[in-house]
């Protein structure tokens, strides 16, 4: 594998350098029907799960076919998307804010061939490549993060639990039987890269052990003052430590009783999953809400996290059976009361679910 230069010369990094040009401009990529009707849309309508039409005041229509995406995707997969888009959609495509793929066509007769093509494609292992669904009062893609595929602080994996959960919720991805949207999200650690803190159901990776100290290398590996400042509960104090060899090094000491395992300070041992519920983002009917912790801990059970998916399924079914039309999961829980929520979802209420986050003062 020979190194091939792009033209960049490390000795003269500024030569011909182009910077600060920003992204490509959005309107280069609008399909013609979008470019023509932007700002003129009158209304939309669902035709079947995953398919909806927007009608413009010009009389034009755009039919959107939404497809579930494992947002971790290879260039081979993207090229297949391109192939489909070239065949059906005039060479344009978009992604949604929840990592789905949207194929758009400008007349109704193009819809069914597209849908059939998409649903016909499967990976060798048997899963759909391009399942159509995720619209309206159903379950769409799970927003998620890196997990064990790339990050250094995860307490659980991301893509794996998401795949396992979406398999369990797949029928609701392909249907619109729920009282309202139900958004599931996953973040692999407390940093919560996503909107997990405001999701109908959130899967959160959580550490339960205070950091493990590698005194011998700590001073070299990270900046001690930064670790101290990063701790939200002031559990970390500087300390001089004697190594087994007798050498004295600068390190830190952790007050374990104060640690809430946020992982801010140091690479930590991954431990398991917290389930949160009842958050939302939209301003519809009620204000956005934070998700609440409803299960304090579930173990990591790779590869299919059965306790996690089972818990989620129970919540979804209880909600589906009991909530009123238009009522989001959190609105439902508040109306019936959290006492009933735990009853109906068959979840146990434990002392961990009671807020005890100490004021940062302590």
């Amino acid at each position, binding site marked *: *594998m*020979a190194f091939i*230069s*792009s*033209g960049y010369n490390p000795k003269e990094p500024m030569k011909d350098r*182009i910077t*600060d*040009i920003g*992204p*490509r401009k*959005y309107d*280069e990529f609008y399909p013609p029907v979008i470019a023509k009707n*932007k*700002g003129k*849309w*009158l*209304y*939309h*309508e*669902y035709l079947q799960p995953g398919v909806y039409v*927007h009608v413009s005041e010009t009389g034009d229509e*755009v039919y959107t076919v939404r497809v579930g995406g*494992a*947002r*971790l*995707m290879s*260039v081979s*997969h*993207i*090229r297949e998307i*391109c192939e489909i888009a070239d065949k059906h959609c005039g060479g*344009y495509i978009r*992604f949604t*804010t929840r*990592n789905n793929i949207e194929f*758009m066509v400008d007349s109704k007769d193009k819809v069914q061939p597209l849908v059939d093509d998409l649903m016909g494609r499967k990976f*060798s292992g*048997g*899963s759909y490549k391009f*399942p159509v669904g995720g*619209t*309206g009062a*159903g379950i769409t893609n799970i927003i998620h993060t890196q997990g*064990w*595929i790339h990050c250094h602080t995860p307490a659980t994996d991301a893509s*794996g639990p998401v*795949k*396992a959960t979406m*398999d369990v919720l797949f029928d609701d991805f392909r249907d*619109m039987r729920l009282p309202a949207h139900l958004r599931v999200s996953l973040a692999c650690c407390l*940093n919560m890269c996503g909107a997990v803190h*405001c999701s109908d159901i959130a899967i959160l990776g959580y550490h339960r052990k205070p950091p493990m100290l590698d005194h011998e290398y700590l001073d070299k590996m990270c900046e001690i003052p930064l670790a101290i400042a990063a701790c*939200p509960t002031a559990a970390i104090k500087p300390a001089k430590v004697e190594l087994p060899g007798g050498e004295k090094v600068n390190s830190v000491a952790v007050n374990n009783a104060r640690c809430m395992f946020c992982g801010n300070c140091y690479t930590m041992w*991954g431990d398991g999953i917290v389930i949160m519920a009842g958050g939302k*983002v*939209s*301003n519809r*009917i009620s204000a*956005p809400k934070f998700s609440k912790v409803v299960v304090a801990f579930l173990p990591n059970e790779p*590869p299919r996290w059965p306790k996690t998916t089972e818990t989620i399924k129970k919540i979804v079914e209880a909600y589906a059976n009991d909530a009123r039309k238009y009522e989001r999961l959190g609105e439902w829980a508040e109306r019936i009361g959290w006492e009933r929520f735990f009853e109906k979802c068959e979840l146990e209420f434990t002392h961990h679910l009671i807020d005890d986050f100490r004021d940062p003062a302590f």
Partner: protein
Amino acid sequence: MPKHETPMLDQLETGPWPSFVSDIKQEAASRAKNERNVEFQIPEDVCDDLLGVLELSYKHGRTHWKHGGIVGVFGYGGGVIGRYCDQPEMFPGVAHFHTMRVNQPGGKFYSTEYLRQLCDLWEFRGSGITNMHGSTGDIIFLGTTTPQLEEIFYEMTHNLNQDLGGSGSNLRTPSDCIGQARCEYACYDTQALCYDLTQTYQDELHRPAFPYKFKFKFDGCPNCCVASIARADISFIGTWRDDIRIDQEAVQAYIGGELKPNAGAHMGRDWGPFDIQKEVIDLCPTGCMWMDGKELKIDNKECTRCMHCINVMPRALRIGNDRGLSMLVGAKAPILDGAQMSTMLVPFIKAEEPYDDIKEIIEKIWDWWMEEGKNRERLGELMKRQGFQKLLEVTELQPDPRMVQEPRSNPYIFWKEEEVEGGWSRDINEFRKYHQR
């Protein structure tokens, strides 16, 4: 024969949802075959090793990635996340495995031509694995080696007219909902504003000069399809200030059952015939709707534009004509002090090019935050620490009850000396004339 046995991951190939394992395997196979004769600039078996290290994580129940130190491209302070494997001998293909964040186009529209260019570049110089897209909005190129970073940047800027996105203590890649491009609810052009601000603040995006990260997100209406209210330091949310437009005939069509409520979003179950009283009027959070005989009436002054009635009857009700946006500030994830939702700063502002009014407010906020913010202090935390009033002061905005959920319930008002008659200094001896010890 795969390079590594992955019995646990293999179980994730079954089930209906698209399997990322199958997809990585497909890429591994494609690289092994190399039908296009690509001169891979990073190990051909990178995808095999990625599966291998992931399988090991599945076995151990913990990650095998280490913090990446500082890697990046010359002159930029962001756009690259360094990452190293903690078992490089076992998995040399992913020993270095940095990600690059590529600033996605507005609304995440693509031509296949352009997408293929990205694929070609990334197959050639990286793992061929991406995230479409990252949580902030970027295209994520997942895994390459340090020497490739500048090369990729060079090719992107020279051949693809494309820049990196943000990371580190700077402006993060702004992102938007689809908005006017395909949505009848959009109250301003989210793509236009997002693009304009992204271009205006390229320097802030690439060169860390802030106390911590800073995010913009653009939602065309209060449905918040890009979740701006939960995860942007400034959330730009479309709104209007005149009346909801009503088509009374369409209202009757909904009542009569000719039109399906909520555009048919509930078609998966039989919810019975549409009941405008129960489903719309009674659920309006401000109770400002009523039927006057056959006419639907709205007391628009009381409407908070929650979108519910419009969502239910999109063909009968439409957003007003005097449109603009609200600016809410301070959302963030839970660490350190707990999650915060954005809070109202500017109830209404017009969103018209060149957006000078909006930029003026942004820059005042930044000036304050750069002056007063501590290291790793998000705007929301500074607001909590110094008080919302301080933000009003620096942005020179007038207080407005719409900025608060409710007035304060503690009376602990910090008066300033100049607000209090006579100031603060008093003469103890004068006082003692009237009050003995």
